[in-house]
């Protein structure tokens, strides 16, 4: 039995369906990330796990026990809020100890626990300060300390890093990952940042419009997205989506694309795509991540289905570690990720290598993945 189970959970506000039947089950020690655009219901779901929002229908179970009717304080969870929600009138130490104090833990024990958490998070020197005297990153640490000190069964994070500047966000992300690796406690983490989702999660639930689009490991989500929404939401820059025709050929199935000069560009899908052989000729959406389109020298030589083509370069964006090259295929802008020293200039034809074993095909009508 899974440690945290969310069974057909629904949320209605009046007639509006905010969550339309969510099913998630994760094992103990998992790091579940709920990711999706704003308004997709991910924070609502987290609040329902926490007990801060009532569950309209369905069931939430933690460690086998139904918690629907339990008060937030009785669910053995701790939550880190987006605004940190530090009590402004208390010192850092009092903030961290508040939960223990409410549970009647003796003072000496509380002080020991606070000192220990302070050490773990390297905030010992801040314990006597008020939250207003702390920087954003320090407040973030204190908020985590307040959750850590209780040693709950499940940690809940509601966009905890979104108020930090970019550099600090990356640091804290690593810190959270390290904490999870050390403690092995189950965590549920809400974010709209797909990079946070990819780096932190052991399980990702991609949500949109009150529904789970896909639940899986980061690799599954990234490499085999269920539909166009997941494919487009995860990854930066996003996956290139091109209208194409799937057809059987001599060397197995292939896709052909319309190019700017009117010729069709035929890309064989390679031996990995045998499952697609039976489909016959039909319209599809070809999905290729930017890193699957490179310059021929940067292509993965072990890849067994590299297709090559010359394409007109429209824009070159050097990003330091890589160079992003924009071309046009099937009347859509297509971004390729080339090596930093790739010799390409805008307005010229350049050789492109397509790693077709990484290609994902979608049904243009339903948006679902084929094969």
């Amino acid at each position: 039995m899974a440690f945290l189970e969310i069974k057909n959970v629904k949320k209605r506000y009046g007639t509006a369906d905010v969550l339309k039947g969510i099913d998630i089950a994760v094992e103990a020690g998992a790091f579940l990330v709920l990711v999706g655009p704003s308004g997709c219901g991910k924070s609502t779901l987290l609040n329902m796990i926490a007990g801060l929002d009532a569950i309209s229908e369905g069931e939430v179970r933690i460690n086998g026990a139904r918690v629907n009717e339990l008060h937030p304080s009785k669910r053995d969870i701790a939550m880190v809020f987006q605004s940190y929600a530090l009590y402004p009138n208390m010192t850092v130490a009092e903030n961290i100890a508040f939960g223990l104090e409410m549970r009647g833990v003796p003072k000496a024990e509380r002080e020991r626990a606070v000192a220990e958490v302070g050490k773990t998070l390297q905030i010992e020197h801040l314990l006597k300060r008020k939250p207003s005297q702390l920087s954003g990153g320090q407040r973030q640490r204190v908020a985590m300390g307040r959750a850590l000190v209780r040693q709950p069964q499940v940690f809940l994070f509601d966009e905890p890093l979104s108020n930090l500047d970019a550099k600090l966000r990356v640091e804290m992300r690593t810190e959270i990952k390290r904490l999870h690796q050390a403690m092995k406690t189950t965590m549920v983490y809400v974010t709209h940042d797909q990079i946070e989702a990819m780096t932190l999660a052991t399980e990702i639930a991609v949500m949109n419009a009150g529904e789970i689009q896909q639940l899986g490991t980061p690799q599954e989500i990234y490499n085999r997205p269920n539909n166009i929404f997941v494919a487009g939401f995860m990854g930066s820059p996003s996956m290139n989506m091109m209208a194409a025709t799937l057809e059987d050929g001599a060397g197995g199935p292939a896709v052909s694309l319309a190019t700017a000069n009117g010729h069709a560009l035929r890309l064989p899908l390679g031996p990995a795509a045998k499952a697609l052989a039976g489909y016959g000729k039909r319209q599809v959406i070809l999905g290729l991540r930017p890193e699957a389109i490179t310059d021929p020298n940067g292509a993965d030589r072990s890849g067994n289905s590299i297709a090559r083509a010359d394409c007109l370069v429209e824009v070159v964006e050097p990003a330091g570690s890589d160079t992003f090259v924009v071309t046009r295929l099937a009347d859509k802008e297509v971004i390729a990720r080339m090596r930093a020293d790739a010799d390409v200039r805008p307005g010229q034809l350049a050789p492109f290598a397509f790693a077709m074993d990484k290609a994902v095909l979608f049904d243009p009508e339903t948006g679902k993945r084929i094969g």
Partner: protein
Amino acid sequence: MAASVATAAVGTARFWRVLIYTTLIVFAVMYLLPLWVMVVTSFKTLDEVHDGHMLQLPQNFTTEAWSSAWGTACIGLTCEGISGYFWNSIKMAVPAVAIATMFGALNGYVLTKWRFPGHKWIFGLMLFGCFIPFQVVLVPMAQVLGRLGIANSTAGLVLVHVVYGLGFSTLFFRNYYEAFPNELVRAAMIDGAGFFRIFWRILLPSSGPIIVVTVIFLFTNIWNDFLFGASFAAGGSAPMTVALNNLVSSSTGVKEYNVHMAAAMIAALPTLLVYVVAGRYFLRGLMAGAVKG
């Protein structure tokens, strides 16, 4: 050329500054003049009040008028000064302010953080209560006080002022707590604090500025109230304002202006004190809020 333009600009600026300060000083003097008359008159003997000029400093400085006003002046038939009534007012205003503030804070807390269906209606009705003129409720209030058996008593006045003050204190606290982050309440809930603990430990300690605002507002209103005092607490339990009126408007004997002025000053002192003392805390509260917390 440029220099002369600059000089002209400086000249105009100075002209406006002089004009503004002159106007301000004139108005300040206008407002302060009555206070000046009160202060100097209260330290004069009655003869000097009659013979001398109103604005003149006292020639024979004496505090006789003050002690007379406090202890021996005749109000109605008793000649024990206004001290008893002063304490009546304190006994009325302090509990009324404390109770109305306390309940206003609780109301504001419930109306923002523990919302229930119809909370907007309840708040709307309480707001409406703020705008009901005093005169409208005189008769029904008298009946209620009579049935409760606290007519003509300080307890009755406290009740009346609490009822009237609640609308305002609820309004103040509701608007203040509206801006108080809900996440703090939610965090405290997860930490295991209940309804009253969240209020007591999380909200109230951050409510300094609004408590001061409410206390200043309510205390001034309640202390200065005349209508309710005159209607519901005549005689021995009358508040200061009613006693002052009785002292000044008594028709027998010579008008002792110096005593009247001293009594009026005594009547005004507590509100002045509240402003001076609490105003500083009020400012301090504002400053603390300005540093983002």
